[in-house]
């Protein structure tokens, strides 16, 4: 019963809410930053505070200085883990054989799928990254000082579909129960994207690339109305 609901109508409900919510969030964000201004800082980001070195140091000198002064330089481990975490978050479900078989059955086409063994290893890797973020949030005073319930919730939403998918694939516990849970968790994550802090997925690109500020990537000129 719940199984049928989760694999049929709820997929559509989740998908429609996800698309509608995302379109709403992005259009609202663009409307709120519709006004544009000439560059406030009077220089391109290349010459901004991250350049931090003299022109005589040459191009490679400027780039190493830039990297060193950026967050990749101050927190290399976390940046490394977050890049792996976010990449796998998208790639593993998209190129999973089991998902692509379902897509093929439904629509007669599918993406390319990676070997199941590889998906399995990558799921392990993803869960390890999620564990890293969980421990970081629980143990480091600097992260704890900023944490709220929702931070744990979005981390859970990201990791739970992977963990339950892993259990289902290996048929650990009752398969039908686990796969139902897996579908429900995936749907919950999808609808949560536009309505929780996971919306950083859109906010990140608008705020870093389009809105004008000292550390803009690119030449954003939008300002808040």
């Amino acid at each position, binding site marked *: 019963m719940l199984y049928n609901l989760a694999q049929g109508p709820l997929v559509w409900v989740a998908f429609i809410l996800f698309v509608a919510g995302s379109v709403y969030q992005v259009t609202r*964000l663009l409307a*709120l930053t519709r006004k544009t201004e000439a560059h406030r800082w009077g220089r391109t980001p290349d010459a901004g*505070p*991250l350049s931090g070195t003299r022109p005589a140091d040459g191009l490679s000198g400027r780039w190493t200085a830039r990297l060193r002064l*950026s*967050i990749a330089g*101050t*927190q290399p481990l*976390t*940046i490394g883990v977050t890049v792996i975490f976010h990449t796998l978050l998208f790639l593993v479900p998209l190129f999973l054989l089991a998902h692509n078989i379902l897509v093929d059955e439904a629509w007669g086409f599918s993406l390319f799928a990676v070997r199941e063994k590889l998906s399995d290893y990558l799921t392990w890797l993803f869960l390890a990254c999620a564990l890293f973020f969980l421990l970081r949030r629980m143990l*480091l*005073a*600097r*992260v*704890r*000082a*900023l*944490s*709220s319930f929702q*931070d744990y919730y979005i981390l859970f939403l990201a990791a739970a579909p992977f963990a339950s998918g892993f259990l289902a694939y290996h048929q650990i516990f009752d398969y039908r129960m686990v796969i139902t849970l897996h579908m429900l968790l995936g749907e919950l994550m999808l609808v949560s994207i536009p309505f929780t*802090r996971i*919306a*950083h997925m859109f*906010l*990140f690109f608008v*705020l*870093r690339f389009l*809105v004008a*500020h*000292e*550390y*803009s990537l690119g030449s954003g000129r939008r300002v*808040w*109305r």
Partner: protein
Amino acid sequence: MLDRALTEVAASGKTTAVDTAEIKHMLDRHKAKIKISLRACVHCSLCAESCFLYTSHHRDPRYMPAYKFIHSTGLLYKKKGKVDRACLEKIRDIVWQDCVLCTRCYCICGIDIPGLISLARSICRSQGVYPDFTVSGER
């Protein structure tokens, strides 16, 4: 904190009631920016090292740029401006003592942290709450 006690600044003279409507009005003018910034912050703490006050205060989390904007403008926004003078005085210490508004904070998500901190300064100032740097005996 020892260094805090040493740099403690005297409160400003004004003791009249807080005009919460005026604070609300000031917040409303920047509502979109505040709301979206609070939403966009993933509470990752990666902005910490960009603030020299954080690194020079034994990495005390209270000096993290995110902590400062969340506990100043963020707090005012959550309370919809309904705060008392004691609360404004706490915010004053955050936005003047713990931050010098050097605008170097670097947020991975592109949040304009100095803009939000300076808004908290304007709001405090509008209520006559600001540090008094007068040398003792001068007034």
